[in-house]
């Protein structure tokens, strides 16, 4: 009898609670509650400037400036952003859009669209003072934007015939065949180790795979490392390599300290990881996260310390348009953002890319 009363009372109580409008017993209505922030740490912004237009590309060989690309009234430019003064000096210009710029020992390579042919690109090497400029590729040789400059004015790129081409500034080339099904999207190379990495899709699928490429006995060897790769980065100063790949709903960041081996170390796991770069010293990785909770396409920039494993947010959501360049051992970011004008609602979006310089202090370890 007692059990029946208890049982019936429990049932009624539960029914009342269930049917009472489902008010949460854990979060009562009209009651102010303090929240302990569960989100991650953030840097402290020390200074910020966004004075010059341009898209940040790479550090120059001597680290005195950053090579940027921009628009001028006459066309497309490669500029030098002076680190000391923050001024912009034009080096070269082109009538066609400049896709990419990478510095070498004595100059830089840049990739531009062919005139009147946006599908083909040309790789051009130039001295820093633009006294010498050479078009390294033929008119139809390149369709992929994948190229990497290294060493003394050398570069490696994937041509339109699925060959990996090693070239120097004079245009002397060595070609290695790749599989016909591979479409190279990005490439890095270590001349010292004769090892590189490339990302490629198979038959133009959306799945981008990561491949290690080795030159051995005059032959090019390719080993697939992973799939669904989002981005990769190489630090020639330390010969270390890292990449980000999608794993389910999250992305993983892997580090390879010995680029000849495949001893991968998983360093980080976060959602919405995008592009990444090493700082110049190879001590930190800077990467962007797509900000889901904001309107528009924005990303936040994060730092990951390879030594301590600590990571934190540096910027608010920004419209990042470039890689993040960070000098060795400095808490300074150089990156470009897109500033949307009032013409946002028109069919033509006008992007003004601005070079941002941000100094910050790392959060204290608690």
């Amino acid at each position, binding site marked *: 009898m007692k059990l029946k009363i208890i049982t019936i009372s429990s049932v009624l109580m*539960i029914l009342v609670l269930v049917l009472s409008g489902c008010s949460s017993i854990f979060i009562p209505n009209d009651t102010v509650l303090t929240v302990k*922030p569960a989100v991650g740490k953030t840097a402290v912004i020390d200074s910020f400037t966004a004075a010059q237009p341009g898209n940040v590309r790479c550090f120059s060989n001597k680290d005195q400036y950053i090579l940027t690309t921009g628009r001028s009234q006459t066309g497309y430019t490669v500029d030098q952003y002076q680190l000391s003064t923050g001024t912009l000096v034009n080096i070269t210009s082109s009538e066609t859009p400049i896709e990419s710029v990478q510095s070498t020992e004595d100059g830089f390579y840049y990739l531009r669209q062919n005139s009147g042919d946006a599908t083909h690109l040309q790789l051009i090497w130039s001295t820093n003072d633009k006294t010498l400029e050479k078009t390294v590729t033929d008119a139809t040789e390149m369709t992929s934007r994948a190229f990497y400059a290294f060493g003394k004015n050398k570069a490696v790129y994937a041509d339109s015939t699925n060959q990996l081409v090693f070239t120097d500034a004079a245009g002397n080339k060595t070609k290695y065949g790749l599989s016909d099904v591979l479409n190279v999207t990005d490439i890095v190379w270590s001349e010292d180790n004769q090892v590189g990495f490339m990302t490629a899709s198979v038959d133009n699928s959306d799945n981008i795979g990561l491949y290690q490429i080795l030159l051995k006995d005059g032959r090019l060897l390719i080993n697939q490392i992973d799939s669904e790769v989002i981005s990769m980065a190489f630090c020639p100063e330390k010969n270390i390599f890292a990449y980000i790949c999608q794993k389910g709903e999250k992305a993983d960041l892997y580090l390879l300290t010995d680029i000849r081996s495949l001893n991968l170390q998983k360093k980080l796991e976060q959602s919405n990881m995008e592009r990444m770069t090493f700082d110049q010293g190879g001590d930190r990785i800077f990467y962007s996260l797509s900000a889901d909770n*904001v309107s528009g396409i924005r990303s936040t920039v994060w730092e990951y310390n390879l030594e301590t494993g600590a990571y934190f*947010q540096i910027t608010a959501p920004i419209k990042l348009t470039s890689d993040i360049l960070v000098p060795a051992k400095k808490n300074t970011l150089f990156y470009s953002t897109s500033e949307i004008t009032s013409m946002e609602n028109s069919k033509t979006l006008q992007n003004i890319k601005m070079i941002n310089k941000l100094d910050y202090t790392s959060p204290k370890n608690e």
Partner: protein
Amino acid sequence: MRPLNYHHKIILNNLLIYTITIAGAVFFAVQFTWFNSIRAIQNDLLQSGLDTNLYIQQQTASLKTNDEKAAYLNANASELYTSIVPFSRCHTELLALDGTVLAFNGGFEEPMHLTAEYEKCRDTGEPNFSVRNDNGLTELWMVTPILSKDNTVIGYTGYIFSLATALGIEHYLFSVLVITGVIGLGVLWICVSKFSNGFLRPIKDLTRISAEVNKGNYNMVIQYKKDDEIGDLTAVYNTMTQNINNVIMQLKSERQRLGSVLASLDDGLIALDRDGNIIASNSYLKTYFNVSNPKSVYDFRYQSFLRDIFDSLKQGQDFISEEVDCNGLQLLLTGSPIREPNVEENYMIIIRNVTATKTFEREQQKFISSVSHELRTPLTTIIGYTDMLKRRNVQDPQLLGSSLDTINHEGHRLVRLVDDLLSANSTQATEFTVRLTNVDLDALLRGVVDQMRIKCWQKEIEISYKAERNLKDVLGDYDRLSQIFINIIHNAMKYSEPGGIIDVVLTEENNQYLSVSIRDFGVGIDPAKKDFIFSAFYRVDEDRSRSNGEGGAGLGLYLVKQVVEKHNGKIRVDSEVGEGTNITVLLPVVDEPEDAHEA
């Protein structure tokens, strides 16, 4: 109200458990879903707050003091607001240090006053939120501090996030769970009903068969072949009923056997328990005491001796024996206790009918007495005469001759007496045989009559013989048949007065028997004694039979009856006191073969 049966209890219990479980699951599922939704929204808004912090830090990085930063915030609220609005997908407000709304939008015409949240945020320095339900709208209100690089608050960001979507999801989840729960309840009801029916069926069978077993039908078997606990139970139950059936059959057989043994006893038997209830008995109780189906010793109202014996045994007597007269019978009752280890003490009374024994003893005594007397009488005469002759040295031939005649006569009498005793003894022997041959009864009787005529003449009795012609033979022992007719005629002589007549007539009766009728016209037999004249040692008139010098042991007619019966014949006595006696012997004829007749 009639209590619920087990079937309904199973269903109700399962439905109740299911309902409680589902209700609890729904409740907690909804609560946790709501909680997690709020948490997710909180985290998004906290992130928005962090993003706002970083942005404003970035924008105010060049300013040195917190006051300048706060002032900058106030002065450039609109531009700052425009930049931070994209950081969240909800109504956002920029608040000054004092809580004043510096900028707002998000489709609201007026700023929302997040006063309580602001005040608590101001007091704690931490983000604060609340869930509000106002005008049918459920919203999450949150205020986060805007911190400068040294964690000084320079302003606040307020967020109002509509929980309509989350609430919709929660309601949808609730509806789905409830509908699923109700459907599940129905499915459960059907499944439990079916399952419980199947589960209870063997139990119902068990109940039904138990009722049959209770009625005494032990051959019932429960048909349940599944290999589970119920199967084990039914297997054991079937084995148990089978064993019970076997034991009962065995007990019945034992009881029948016991009954047969008891029935085959020549004595009556009563077995009693300590309360006097009858455990076992046989049919002699009815025979001796005329009591049917007694249940206890106290049912014998007129046989108090049974109760007395029972009481004596109960008091500890080990053996008791008593002779009683009951309903014309002499009974010997012996009682003793039945003692077995681990069994309650019971009692047994054996009832033996000793009437015949007593009668025999009395007859035996009478016979001995009679024989003694019969033996003594001639012996006394012989001794007397021999003593006289010896003592007196009788020389007279006439006296000597008569004395010797008397001695001879008495000697013959002794011999006859001994012969009768031997004949009677031989008829009791199992090897008493008759040599059967075809006997011409007419010739036999003529010889017997001629033989007895002399004796009859001596007693002045006339004996006549008549026979029908062409009579058939009988199958018999010539000598024994001669003897019996001699005995009958002798008996007739004994009880006839001088001058009497004895008629012997031989006829055929019903073409099956030859009838020998020996009729005397003597004293006759008292009808009360007529049935005893063929009993051994019985003499109708003791004094008379001794006084006329004939005597006898009373075996003559007894022997006649034995021999007649041995010949498959019959004997009949018709007598009236003072009119005489007619003894008729019927002997079956021998059927002649047809060819003989034809011959």
